[in-house]
């Protein structure tokens, strides 16, 4: 039967009808109308956006451009009166400086390590919080603590835990009989980065967990019941349903956290000041040293600029993955 008597929908049958339908389909995607619906809307939109445009131009866009301009000068605050324009010398200096490349390497490995750790821990935690059991709410409240505390506090907390002379970590390892005398912690170049990474991960895990948790919640329960019916066991269900569904969450966490890690400064300042022997000398720290220890604002901005560009490249993916929805 190509039609049913009670059909209310007129566009239902006949070859002619089909072609009519075809022609009626073509219309632009709603979100991308370039034409204002009304002059009044255009006016109000402009008015509503004006503050943001102003603020962001002044506090974000202009500074970035300006810092590029600075990066083309040899600006040293120890001799404020002579500021020659040096084209790209600062960049050349950096790119030919082995220390810079070491820092880049360190930043990269720090980023990869942290993001991996964060992903694993956050996944486990979000799976746990996605279960329904007594005390769940307490846990999710606890979870927020690391997220809320200042990095400075986080830093001093770990600095004290890691203390080679009296630190809790040494104490713990000793009481567990893993070491027979206190060992050097942050001072041991082999341990420095892992320890800093741990402090960073501990603070970043909560947000990642929340993001993943929300993604989990969006998985429709019937998917699982369906899988159950098909006799899939826990593991299979996790691998075939949960993981794939988590992918967008993972992407988000990965991008966000790597951006955080690349630019991270506070912990390096509080825990090691880039030391010992440059063991924790990352790009962000180098920016600080160049800028405020050596007062070489030119090189400092050049560095910062390289960083900004790097982050932008990363951010390109953020925009790609989000603007569609905005």
């Amino acid at each position, binding site marked *: 039967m190509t039609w049913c008597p009670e059909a209310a929908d007129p566009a239902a049958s006949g070859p002619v009808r089909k072609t009519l339908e075809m022609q009626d389909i073509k219309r632009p995607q709603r979100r991308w109308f370039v034409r204002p619906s009304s002059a009044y809307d255009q006016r109000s939109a402009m*008015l509503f956006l004006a503050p943001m445009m102003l603020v962001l131009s002044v506090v974000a866009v202009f500074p970035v451009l300006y810092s590029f301009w600075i990066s083309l000068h040899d600006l040293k605050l120890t001799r404020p009166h002579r500021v020659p324009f040096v084209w790209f010398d600062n960049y050349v200096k950096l790119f030919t400086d082995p220390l810079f490349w070491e820092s880049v390497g360190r930043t990269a490995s720090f980023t990869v390590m942290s993001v991996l750790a964060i992903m694993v821990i956050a996944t486990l935690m979000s799976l746990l919080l996605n279960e329904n059991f007594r005390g769940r709410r307490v846990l999710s409240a606890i979870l927020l603590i690391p997220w809320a505390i200042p990095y400075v506090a986080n830093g001093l907390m770990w600095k004290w835990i890691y203390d080679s*002379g009296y630190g809790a970590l040494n104490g713990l390892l000793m009481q567990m009989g893993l070491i027979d005398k206190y060992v050097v912690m942050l001072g041991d170049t082999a341990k420095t980065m892992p320890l800093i990474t741990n402090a960073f991960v501990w603070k970043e895990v909560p947000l990642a967990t929340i993001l993943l948790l929300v993604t989990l919640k969006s998985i429709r329960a019937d998917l699982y019941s369906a899988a159950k019916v098909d006799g899939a066991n826990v593991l299979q269900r996790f691998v075939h349903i949960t993981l794939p569904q988590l992918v967008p969450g993972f992407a988000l966490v990965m991008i966000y956290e790597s951006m955080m890690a690349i630019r991270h400064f506070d912990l390096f300042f509080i825990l090691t000041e880039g030391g010992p022997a440059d063991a924790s000398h990352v790009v962000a720290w180098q920016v600080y040293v160049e800028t405020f*220890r050596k007062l070489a604002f030119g090189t400092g901005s050049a560095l910062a600029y390289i960083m900004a560009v790097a982050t932008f490249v990363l951010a390109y993916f953020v925009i790609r993955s989000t603007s569609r929805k905005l």
Partner: protein
Amino acid sequence: MSNIWNGDASRRDFLKLAAAAGAAGTGALSLDAAAQAGQPINFYTWSAAVDLVKSHLTAFESSTGLKVNYNNAPWAQYRDTMVTKFVGKAPLDVMWVSDSWLPEWAEAGWIAPIDGFPSLMKYNADADTFCNESMRYKGKQYGLTYYTDYMAFFYDEEMLKKAGIKAPPTTWDELLQQSLKIKGAGLSEYPMMLSMARESWLIEFLSAMVFSNGGRFTDADGAAVMADPKRGAHQAMQWVVDAVNKHKIISPACVETGELNGLKAFGAGNHAFALLSRYRVRTLNDPKQSAIAGRVKQALMPMGPGGSHATVGWMRFHGMSTQAAADKTRAANAAKLIEWFGGKAGSQYQFQKMLFSDLGSGFGVKELFRDPEVQANYKKYSDIAMYEAQQKLARKKDVIAPWFGEWDEVNGTAWQTAVVGKSSVAAALKKSSEAWNDLRKS
């Protein structure tokens, strides 16, 4: 719903809201705005002798009627903090200056010469020439003493006895042998305490080691010689590297041990020998603060082959900011304060004496050595003869230059890199000396 809610009023109404918020903001902030105006004398020091300074300020305020706005920052962060303040044009009149930074700060025009103040210059007559020299840059004097001291070699007499050692070491090699003995006797895990953390103290430790090994960082006309195997720092650095890695008489944690943690550790009786600034002996022999009180003795700096008992001496002094010097009244007030601390407060060198009795900090004022009070005071915990003997052998740092701060970054790291075995001694020193020469050129 009031009538501001009409479509076209939206702009007006935005401004209103914004203005309101702004107003609220300023209201809250006005409190702090007050602190901007520089009426009182802004006095900045590192966090040392804080209480003493406060008490001396109280006296100053009551005697002159001037107000002083006193702040202090931790020594470890002091240079960074001050530099940001200078650059940011924070209100500053008088501040403590370390001889290491003098050229940099003078060159950048942050601190001003005091030659124009006879009331201050007159005190030079009473002071060691070495002190006055340390406050001079390009023929101008930039301040009046806070304290002067040198890097000293201490040992725990009792621990040595226990190990059956009669006399303290006189050479670095002896020091090594004795340390090994003590380590062997299980008296101390790491008999020698040396703090190599990246902080402003580091250069003083290094200089002491290098000088006593007969080496130099730079030659007479300021060219780098540190990398030179004969005249340079090679010998000293090699000794440290071996002590840490080969003989294990110095803790590998030294790269994260600051001077004060070193002091604490030595004071706790964990070590037999220590390199520390001389005035620390007071703390070390003070039962309230030290587990080894009364056992700490000073010996001359051990010497390396071809070296001497030389050590490094330094000068910390009161400087005047350029902004203060630029304003007549501010300059006058600043001068008053500097005199009160660096010179005589009333009839005598009040601050210097109190500093000595409270902390044991050294002074450059010759007459104080002869002061019976001072002598009696020092007897209580140390040997003034040794104090003077070593001070005679103290020499000025040879790396003081406008680019010191920048070079210090590289040099400090270089030494640490060698100590943690990440680079050879030669390579480390080469890096450091290249950095020096580059900076010197530009």
